[in-house]
């Protein structure tokens, strides 16, 4: 009898351990493994490369984090980013707008997409996944219609026969390609945003309200929270993060690529769920999300060094997501069975 209990206890404890430190352990194993097979891997320049490569995904994932915190889910972040990418480029290349408008308009559009999402979810009552899935397609359609299916670049030919009048300005490109204090600008933007999300979620009254709304909407309502407004805010924040990712992407590649965000949705979602369990948080959180994005970034970087064909990457990304989800759900089932 006692032996059985002991065994159960051991099993229990190892699950706890795996949940708390599993992602960190995984990260170490990956780093050790890639370092042992490639000299180029464990270098400063490769690490800044990795950080730069995850900066866009991290922004997207932070948005998803906010919606997950309130008990929702935003699938439309990828296409919102795509829309923002082409709008940003077009404002400069087609319409020669000043930089401040180029930065503000896409963010407003992202907020509008968030507003549309929350209208469907909060006012009409469509479940989060289905509403944002539909909006994902609507927004993707808009961004392709807007550019008539073409990417936007300097001096591109226009349908009227002339070439585009404007250019992506130096100042704008600096956002995506410049460096400061030894780190690329996108990395700085990412770090500031992670810190911002962390402070909002964990150290402000708003963060408390967001988490409680997701934790128990009914109890939050009876404690005086207007959960409709809170959910609406979360989706707007998500839209803004996605449009920031789009702006950053344009500045980084120097053109308005079509469908830029679609493949990143999956990585962003995976990042959030890997981060879910980091250090036993047991809920979506900003630091964990950054950490999750790093795990995926390092993995993809290492696989590139190993010369794995890029079309096989989705297998790895998908497997990471499944693993993270498995850990999350096994753990939450355990936690709820205690209650």
């Amino acid at each position, binding site marked *: 009898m006692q032996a059985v209990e002991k065994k159960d206890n051991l099993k229990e404890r190892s699950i706890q351990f795996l949940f708390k430190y599993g992602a960190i352990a995984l990260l170490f194993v990956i780093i050790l493994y890639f370092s042992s097979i490639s000299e180029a891997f464990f270098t400063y320049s490769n690490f800044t490369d990795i950080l730069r490569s995850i900066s866009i995904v991290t922004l997207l994932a932070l948005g998803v984090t906010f919606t997950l915190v309130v008990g929702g889910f935003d699938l439309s972040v990828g296409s919102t980013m795509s829309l923002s990418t082409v709008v940003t480029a077009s404002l400069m290349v087609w319409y020669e707008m000043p930089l401040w408008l180029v930065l503000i308009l896409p963010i407003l559009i992202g907020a509008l997409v968030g507003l549309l999402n929350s209208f469907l979810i909060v006012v009409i009552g469509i479940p989060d996944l289905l509403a944002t899935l539909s909006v994902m397609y609507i927004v993707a359609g808009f961004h392709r219609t807007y550019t008539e299916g073409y990417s936007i670049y300097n001096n591109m030919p226009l349908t009227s026969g002339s070439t585009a009048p404007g250019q992506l300005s130096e100042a704008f490109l600096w956002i995506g390609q410049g460096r400061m204090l030894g780190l690329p600008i996108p990395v700085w933007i990412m770090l500031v945003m992670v810190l911002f999300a962390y402070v909002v979620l964990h150290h402000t009254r708003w963060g408390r309200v967001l988490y409680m709304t997701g934790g128990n909407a009914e*109890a939050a309502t009876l*404690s005086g929270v207007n959960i409709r407004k809170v959910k609406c805010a979360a989706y707007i924040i998500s839209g803004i993060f996605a449009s920031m990712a789009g702006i950053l992407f344009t500045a980084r590649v120097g053109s308005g690529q079509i469908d830029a965000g679609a493949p990143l949705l999956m990585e962003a979602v995976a990042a959030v769920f890997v981060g879910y369990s980091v250090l036993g948080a*047991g809920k979506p959180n900003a630091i964990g999300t950054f950490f999750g994005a790093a795990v995926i970034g390092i993995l993809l970087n290492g696989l590139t060094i190993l010369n794995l064909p890029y079309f096989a990457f989705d297998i790895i990304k998908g497997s990471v997501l499944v693993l993270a989800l498995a850990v999350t759900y096994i753990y939450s089932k355990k936690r709820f069975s205690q209650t």
Partner: protein
Amino acid sequence: MDSPFLSMNAIRKSFGHVKALEDAQFHLAKGEVHALLGVNGAGKSTLIKILSGVYEQDEGDILLDGKNIRLRSPKAAKDHGIYCVYQEVDTAIVSELSVAENIMLDTIATGKNVFVSMTKMYEEARKALKQLQVETIDVQEPAFKLTLAEKQLVLIARALVSSAKIIIFDEPTAPLSLHESTKLFSVINKLKAQGVGCIFISHRLPEVFEISDWITVMRDGKLVQTFQTENADAEKIIEAMLGASFNHEQVDRSWEIGKNLLDVKEISDDQKLKNLTFTVSEGEIVGIVGLVGAGKTELAKALFGAEPLKKGTISLSGNSLHMKHPKDAIRAGMALIPEERRKEGLFVLESLQTNASFPNLKKFSSFLFMQKKAEKSFAKEIIGRLQIKANSTETPLVHLSGGNQQKVVIGKWTSRDSKVYLFDEPTKGVDIGAKADIFKLIRELAESGKGCLYFSSEIHEAIGISDRILVMYNGQFVKEFSREEATQERILLYASGGKEG
């Protein structure tokens, strides 16, 4: 009742250490309506669940038609012709399917035919409804178009097509209008005439007298007494339900009741609540007592702005309140300790301190930033003041017992200095020691000048704590008792829809 068709003898059932049934008995003859009565926790629903195969008894026999049977699953019970019409009809109805498919559901599910003939199904469904003389229901309609009462009839018809011998009605009239109840009773009488044995569970005595032939009263997991309805009277039945009268401790009140605090005039929600008027003064504890389904929770939620009201006014300290959301009620100075603690009152996975500070985050933050030290010291303060058993302020509430969780729910409001506290069944699922603590807390709140409303179906507890008791029945106040006049018997009589004299 010479030759009972169904006999349940010496039934015992425990859940962990809790004995739900001890030596329970029940007998039912063909073609009779037998009412089963008892206060909360008397063991009615456990007995019914054993009979319908949801639970299996630990000990005891069930004899059907003289044969010993084992009911290991709901399916086994159905195979023996025992059907249950639950109060929540929607759990048993597939709303997308037609009425006919719903009526034939058990037959389809267990049938061996791959193909289902619609014409044949409509025909059989119509036949069943005709037997109940409720042909007005169109068998081709989808079930979601039906009213609640009609769905009940569909469930009864379902039992009938499977040639049910016993049908259990578990509080069937609770959601029905008077007219619908009358209709249901005529259906029950038809079933009776066809030789079906009916078990009827209800909190409403007038109905029980109207429909039943026999009344069995249960208390503390045992059969207490069986009455022939013709010869029974309400007061005797109430006595049997309550057992020996409790000597509730009368606590001396050392504090005075102050001026009028909450003034509620003629509020209605056009559904459950009908024209309710009452007041609560500073330092007063007003008990609102009613049985399950009387509308207590609806009233508590309406007072808290969580359910809309159609008519009437609520004013607090002379200011009239217009509440659209609980936050309006909270700002005005109300606090709700909801009935479903875990579902509505707490964030069980969060820490004690996070829960405690939540209703008043502004107090625990400066500008936007949370002041975790202030939160912690408040959590410590309520742990001490309310004698909460918790290892630390960081303990997630999952790890606390029901009573300690409830103390957190009460304590969290004290940071707002609310004026009126609404306690909805605050002792539900709380052990005896913690109950005493909670009563003490409520008295302390009253002593400090708060107005308290105590919603409960536990009559003796309400008598013990309240200064005044309003008895609620079917969404209305039917009687008011002062502390001195109140006895369990009198309250239960009114709460069951009876009258004195």
